[in-house]
């Protein structure tokens, strides 16, 4: 669950989220690159490792507001990652930061709005539709599951857990898809039968959020 005293998500928890994502891309970086080898150019893992290492340096002294924190994350990703995932994850956090504004903490509903802005940013930047076999196929279902859980009375932690589970299902669903966006699309039918690397990293991102908000951690 979110901060037990106030029911809200603190900046420290958001930094915890980032740290958990950094740890996850380190742990699964080789696997992400492996997925990218099959239908891409074998760099997705190293791209995110480089980006999240830069992010954790950038947020060592966290800024004053959630908005400033998330924008800094976005800007760092944009300027350190490159490739497709740099602008996409960068825009995710830049838009999240804009939505969060001056707030110093987020309640579950505010977090929903922030996540919605973030995912809409990915779509605005990448112009992917659902089913195109991209990270959006994990992020879209995650956002919907978060909202649905919230509507059924869950707190931020519970909603994030539901979102992470939905992301994982979305990721798995990319396997039989034929890619229509990103470099996997160049393979045509040969892209079928492989999980999209961006959907896998996006699942790690949402999973990291669920882990950071769970108290005590659901999945130690």
């Amino acid at each position, binding site marked *: 669950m979110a901060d037990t005293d106030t029911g809200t998500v603190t900046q420290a928890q958001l930094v915890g989220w980032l740290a958990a994502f950094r740890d996850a891309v380190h742990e699964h970086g080789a696997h992400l690159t492996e997925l990218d080898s*099959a239908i891409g150019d074998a760099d997705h893992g190293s791209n995110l490792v480089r980006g999240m290492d830069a992010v954790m340096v950038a947020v060592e002294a966290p800024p004053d507001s959630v908005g400033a924190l998330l924008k800094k994350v976005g800007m760092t990703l*944009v300027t350190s990652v490159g*490739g*497709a995932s740099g602008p996409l994850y960068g825009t995710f956090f830049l838009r999240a930061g804009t939505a969060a504004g001056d707030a110093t903490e987020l309640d579950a509903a505010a977090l929903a709005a922030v996540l919605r802005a973030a995912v809409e940013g990915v779509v605005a930047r990448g112009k992917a539709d659902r089913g195109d076999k991209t990270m959006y196929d994990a992020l879209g279902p995650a956002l919907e599951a978060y909202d649905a859980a919230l509507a059924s009375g869950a707190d931020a932690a519970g909603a994030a857990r539901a979102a992470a589970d939905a992301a994982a299902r979305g990721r798995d669903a990319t396997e039989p898809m034929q890619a229509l966006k990103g470099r996997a699309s160049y393979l*045509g039918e040969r892209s079928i039968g492989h999980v999209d690397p961006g959907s896998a990293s996006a699942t790690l991102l949402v999973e990291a959020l669920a882990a950071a908000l769970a108290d005590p951690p659901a999945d130690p």
Partner: protein
Amino acid sequence: MKKLINDPANVLADALRGIEAAHPELRVDHQHRVIYRAEPKQDGRVAIISGGGSGHEPLHGGFVGPGMLDAACAGEVFTSPTPDQVAEATTAVDRGAGVLHVVKNYTGDVMNFEMAGELAAADSGVRVETVVTADDVAVQDSTYTAGRRGVGLTVLLEKIVGAAAEEGQDLDAVVALAQRVNDAGRSMGIALTSCTVPAAGKPTFDLPEDEMEVGVGIHGEPGRRRVPLAPASEVAALLVEPVLADRDATGSPAIVMLNGMGGTPLIELYVLYGEVARLLADAGVPVARRLVGNYITSLDMAGASLTVLGADEDLLRLWDAPVDTSGLRWGV
């Protein structure tokens, strides 16, 4: 993985140091990872920058110099450069006549250059135009997908628009020319082996000793299909036929490039070019100019790509114009 490198994480930084040491006629901004002409072009001329992931050398840094690019932005291996790099280069090379971005059609490159253009325009008011090369006939062209990859044609385009900028054509004219070149060029590639991305540490794909990949790009992506290894005469047909099927090249003088992927030695490229030239002659394509060598590579991949550009007197004149870069040099 056997490579002449230090830490795989530092390949780009290390290569830029080598480029700087090897080419006093270039200036390297190590912070932003941009390669500039040491001597900027004169005021009032359109500037041209390109860039993309590293691992395609001599592209793009090898094409910086009089008659071609003003700057090249180097991304990590196979990873497009970031918007701040491109924005920095854009602002630096502008001589008051605007800047053309030459971008290869990959989602990452397109998005990063797009963001860079927004940044540069907002920061400094530089007028930025973009041409996105998309010449790879191995990819189905469709508005529902990312479209075709930009591959070998990028080299020919950079040469031609570079000459136009040098002779004083304005940004609109240079953009129109770039579009014209982009419309008239097609490419196709094959690979005998995968490449190995340094950070990945192992080949991107496994290719049995008796098979090759047809329709590869320049990032070690698997191609469109795998076929049995064939003699050069048949490989030539696998390159020539789809290129000519996609665009009739019999009508106008052609500029032809047979490009090596990095791990293929020149003697093999010549063997293959002999077959390609024969097929082009049989098909009635009037080859006016030709390049055979490593121009846009894919790390240590063994393989080759063919690019055919339908030209006219104007394009040939710009092609023949002086160029003074480490990758292409003539007339100077």
